[in-house]
């Protein structure tokens, strides 16, 4: 700790160059003493606040000297020891989330969902949760550089502006190569830039492109928009290869909507039905009621088939080229029956398919009902054609200046080699990457951007829905946020902060009428983080002229083995490759971490004689280990993108292989699947880091499920074992009673999608160490909360069950009995406590825990070179939660139900002299859950939701026949599925 503070004092020297008094870090000045000075929570030296630096000489018997360094000037809103929360906005060019940043002594340590946001409604994803660690990423650029040598900001600005002007005079092309920008003010700023340098052009580039959807909408409505889908209004969801719960466009929003429709209340039970056509098993597919594995190339024909069936019903003209790989008659009937209450989505980046999908939705007249074209999403704006054109021009030497904002094409552009050669032809190339990446290595200048937690920002993820991002910490390094750089380039004197305020004053403040002066409007939106306005309805005319051609041009009958390149939950498109938390997050479906792999179908593996981990070469490009993925369509294979980074940093470098290299860029839109893949078995077998090696329930009723109509008949169907256990529960000892609280948790298996946000949230909240691939292979992963995934069978197309498992806090805990030193007794509030400092590490409790939720510190994972992921570097240690002890080697640890939050909540209530409200205390997992699948509360409070959940017939306890009396309940999974599959 001490060292860390010192290092920041040293840092202070470098940071003095920051002239902006608002961000001044040079202690305080006279008027601040008098209290009239500007205060700013972002003042870092002050942040260094009451960080009790330990210069401890523990070894000797001398009294160790602990320094207590108080604030120099204590900002009003900071009380050492109490967390501050600031609403902010997360957007990385891919996912959007409105967040609340929890800071301690000025350090952001945790992100929580912002309940006030109409879009994300407090939900988060694993990536959002983990993004706080990127702030403390050791791979971040610490200074602006020119050709990899440090340079002063002033000089850099001078040089670049000079070059820009000369280029602009010559009228040569300047390109801003940017990821999707949803910040209206930044867009304005770009406009200003173009105004200054007319030859400039902004190109939006998405590594994971939805360009086809935009184009399709262009065709169908004449507007290049991205409609907002309403899964909460659809009773029948048919998804073609769209992983809308995991990665597709706006997963948090969709998960919220989806799960709201999957929850069952006893009065009028009803839930949506979800049909998924896809080649590889995605998170969404694993949650579908019906999942039909199809080859990517069959999709077009299938869509036409479905369209024709529906067209027949509505008397529209039939399209040519349909063929029934799957019999969709009954699906069509059902859709037709659910007219206006159904939703068909497609994730394939192919304009024809998308066009037909639009047509289908049009037939079902879902527009305006389950598809909101009126206030569309702005989360994907990339235009593949433009990008291709630009890369072409670059190679043709037509581009003389290029700025990379939040993109890494040198890594994720399909023909990256061509791109690189093109880039070398560009005279002035600037990258704003805040951390090491492949592109910034090649550019002339690297002007590192701030982390989003250090920057001001605004966002408009959806038309009419605005949100603000505010800095929660002073820049850790000598970085400058992009917008400020552009302001410098256009010669503006203002800081982006003022620019932003001015923009909001003129553009957005006018949109509302509630608040009379801007300051209060600003403070209000800053406080809430979001601001929503109603926007006037526009008319949309569906234009079906192109349909026939579309049907003709649809890709059909692909040949040979087809390869699907998909995005996985943790790493996504590779931006987070250097985030150890996400690297170690097991994929929700395959349970593999620290690697990508070639997913093959069971039959394919059988005929080719492939075993788990066998190395194969893919198109001769690279070699990958094989994973046999149940549910993988035959004759197809799949690889996750985002791996194989070469300049990411400690954790991310050379993990897996880069699948972007395989993307088909021949068409107008990037094709994320390719045909005729050559797969040859090569020598060797590479062990995959699996966190679960046995995939079926062995016929044990661990996850209990029933079907909707069964449930309607009998609410406790599928849960008979619970009744049985209740009847036969007998004990020698009196049933434990709890005078005060009795904390309990319930998990709705029907709502849970297995997205794993809770896993990372738990890791962030409880300082859970990252242990690296080797130790994961040794089955020593430290996650306090794991998500068990079971297949109904290992071959063919199994059903998938997700089950979050954490410490069950049994009232008859087997682990408590066996600890010789009583390191894990039961609390008076029903918690199974773990006193780390008492534990001597006999590991008896681990053996005796039937749920296997106890974790042992096999090595010293802190301050240990060998595990230099999170808890070794001073920088990354800043993310640690000061309220939770960092465990030492040789002790057992486990889920505490976030006891620190419980205590905090109780204390709050006591201080305010009031009773505890139900739902006031939220464990990290619950807080992060986008599906609201987790319920927590006081079982002694008869009104609480948890008690209601326990009274629910669906409630049961894991392994309850052992009579461990867990305090964690599970609600049975209900599938909306008929006895006889209505799809062949």
């Amino acid at each position, binding site marked *: 700790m001490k060292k860390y503070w010192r290092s920041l004092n040293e840092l202070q020297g470098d940071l003095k160059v920051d002239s902006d008094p608002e961000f001044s870090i040079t202690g305080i000045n006279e008027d601040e003493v008098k209290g009239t000075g500007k205060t700013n929570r972002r003042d870092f030296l002050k942040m260094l606040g009451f960080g009790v630096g330990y210069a401890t000489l523990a070894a000797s018997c001398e009294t160790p000297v602990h320094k207590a360094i108080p604030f120099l000037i204590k900002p009003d809103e900071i009380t050492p020891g109490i967390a501050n929360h600031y609403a902010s906005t997360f957007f990385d060019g891919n996912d959007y989330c409105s967040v609340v940043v929890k800071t301690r002594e000025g350090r952001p340590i945790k992100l929580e969902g912002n309940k006030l946001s109409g879009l994300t409604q407090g939900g988060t994803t694993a990536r959002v949760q983990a993004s706080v660690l990127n702030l403390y990423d050791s791979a971040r650029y610490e200074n602006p550089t020119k050709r990899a040598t440090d340079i002063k900001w002033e000089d850099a600005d001078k040089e670049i502006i000079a070059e820009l002007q000369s280029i602009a005079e010559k009228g040569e092309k300047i390109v801003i190569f940017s990821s999707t920008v949803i910040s209206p003010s930044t867009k304005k700023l770009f406009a200003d830039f173009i105004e200054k340098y007319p030859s400039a052009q902004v190109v939006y580039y998405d590594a994971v492109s939805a360009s086809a959807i935009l184009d399709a909408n262009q065709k169908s409505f004449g507007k290049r928009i991205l409609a907002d889908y309403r899964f909460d209004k659809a009773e029948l969801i048919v998804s073609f290869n769209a992983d809308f719960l995991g990665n597709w466009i706006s997963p948090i929003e969709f998960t919220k909507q989806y799960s709201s429709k999957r929850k069952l209340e006893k009065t009028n039970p009803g839930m949506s039905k979800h049909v998924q056509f896809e080649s590889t098993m995605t998170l969404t597919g694993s949650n579908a009621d019906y999942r039909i594995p199809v080859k990517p190339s069959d999709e077009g024909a299938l869509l036409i088939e479905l369209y024709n069936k529906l067209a027949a019903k509505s008397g529209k003209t039939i399209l040519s080229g349909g063929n029934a790989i799957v019999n969709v008659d009954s699906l069509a009937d059902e859709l037709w029956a659910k007219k206006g209450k159904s939703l068909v989505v497609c994730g394939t980046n192919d304009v024809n398919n998308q066009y037909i999908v639009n047509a289908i939705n049009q037939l079902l007249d879902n527009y305006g009902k389950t598809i909101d074209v009126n206030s569309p999403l702005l989360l994907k704006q990339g235009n593949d054609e433009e990008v291709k054109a630009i890369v072409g021009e670059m190679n043709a030497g037509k581009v003389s200046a290029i700025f990379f904002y939040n993109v890494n094409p040198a890594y994720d552009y399909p023909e990256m080699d061509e791109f690189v050669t093109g880039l070398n032809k560009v005279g002035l190339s600037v990258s704003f990457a805040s951390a090491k990446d492949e592109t910034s290595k090649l550019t002339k200048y690297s002007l590192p951007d701030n982390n989003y937690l250090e920057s001001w920002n605004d966002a408009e993820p959806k038309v009419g829905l605005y949100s603000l991002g505010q800095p929660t910490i002073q820049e850790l390094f000598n970085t400058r946020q992009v917008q400020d750089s552009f302001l410098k380039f256009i010669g503006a004197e203002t800081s982006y902060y003022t620019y932003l305020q001015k923009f909001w004053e003129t553009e957005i403040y006018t949109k509302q009428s509630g608040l009379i002066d801007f300051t209060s409007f600003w403070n209000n939106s800053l406080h809430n983080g979001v601001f929503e306005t109603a926007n006037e309805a526009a008319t949309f005319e569906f234009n079906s002229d192109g349909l026939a051609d579309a049907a003709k041009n649809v890709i059909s009958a692909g040949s040979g083995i087809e390869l699907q390149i998909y995005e996985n939950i943790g790493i996504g498109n590779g931006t987070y490759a250097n985030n150890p938390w996400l690297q170690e997050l097991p994929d929700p479906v395959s349970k593999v971490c620290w690697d990508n792999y070639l997913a093959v179908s069971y039959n394919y593996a059988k005929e080719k004689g492939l075993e788990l981990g066998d190395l194969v070469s893919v198109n001769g490009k690279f070699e990958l280990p094989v994973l046999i993925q149940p549910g993988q369509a035959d004759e197809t294979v799949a690889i996750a993108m985002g791996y194989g980074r070469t300049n990411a940093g400690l954790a991310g470098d050379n993990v897996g292989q880069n699948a972007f290299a395989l993307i088909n860029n021949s068409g107008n839109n990037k094709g994320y699947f390719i045909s005729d893949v050559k797969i040859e078995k090569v020598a060797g077998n590479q062990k995959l880091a699996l966190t679960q090696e046995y995939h079926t329930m062995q016929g044990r009723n661990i996850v209990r499920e029933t079907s909707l109509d069964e449930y309607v008949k009998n609410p406790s169907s599928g849960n008979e074992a619970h009744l049985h256990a209740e009847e036969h529960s007998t004990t020698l000892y009196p049933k434990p009673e709890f005078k005060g609280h009795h904390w309990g948790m319930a998990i709705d298996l029907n709502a849970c999608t297995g997205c794993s946000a809770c896993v990372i949230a738990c890791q962030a909240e409880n300082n859970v160490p990252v242990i690296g691939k080797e130790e994961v292979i040794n089955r020593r992963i430290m996650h306090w909360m794991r998500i068990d995934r079971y297949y109904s069978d290992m071959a063919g197309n199994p059903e998938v069950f997700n089950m979050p498992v954490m410490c069950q806090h049994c009232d*008859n805990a087997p682990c408590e009995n066996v600890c010789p030193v009583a390191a894990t007794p*039961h609390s008076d509030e029903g918690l199974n406590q773990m006193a780390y400092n008492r534990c001597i590490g006999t590991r008896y409790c681990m053996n005796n825990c039937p749920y296997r939720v106890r974790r042992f510190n096999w090595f010293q994972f802190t301050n240990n070179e060998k595990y230099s992921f999170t808890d070794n570097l001073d920088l990354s240690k800043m993310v640690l939660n000061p309220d939770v002890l960092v465990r030492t080697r040789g002790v057992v640890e486990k889920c505490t139900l976030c006891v620190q939050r419980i205590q905090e909540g109780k204390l709050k209530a006591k201080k305010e002299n009031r009773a505890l409200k139900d739902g006031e205390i939220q464990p990290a997992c619950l807080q992060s859950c986008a599906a609201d699948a987790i319920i927590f509360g006081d079982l002694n409070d008869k009104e609480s939701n948890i008690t209601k959940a326990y009274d629910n017939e669906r409630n049961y306890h894991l392994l309850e026949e052992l009579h461990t009396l867990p305090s964690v309940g599970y609600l049975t999974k209900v599938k909306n599925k008929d006895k006889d599959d209505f799809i062949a």
Partner: protein
Amino acid sequence: MQKNIIGIYKDETLIAPVINQLREQGVEVKDVYTPFPVNDIIEAMKLKTNFPYFAFAFGVIGFSLTFLFLYWTSAISYPLVLGGKPYLSLSFVVIIFVMVINVTVTGSLIAFFVREKKGPGTKPKFDSEDVNDDKFVVFIDKTAKMTDDDSAKISDILRSSGAVDVKENV
């Protein structure tokens, strides 16, 4: 200086009769040193020990101490709820059982060595004459009132009973 008469034998079976014979003469054999315990001799000498009672006492002490300690620690001093069991749980039986044995053994041992006044490095009261090898020694006090011919008679009895050697006034 206390005088003694010792008879040295090679055959333990001869000794028991001698002891009785001497007793008839009103002479009490003080002790017999043998390389291994010989029950006949013990009986002949009419020796008794109340050792077992000590052992029992120790057992009782062990039991009560252990029980009280367990009860006090886990129900009074710092009660902890462990696995939903009552503070005073049946499983204490195990520890009590073992501790009883522990205390008894330790106690008996100490008692033995104290009673015997034996310990590391203590000198044997009577050694030589290969009593720890293959000789058996009958040991008789030569009391003050014992005249020389008394002792002579005793020696005769010893010799006649088959002692390989008889020594006086050692």
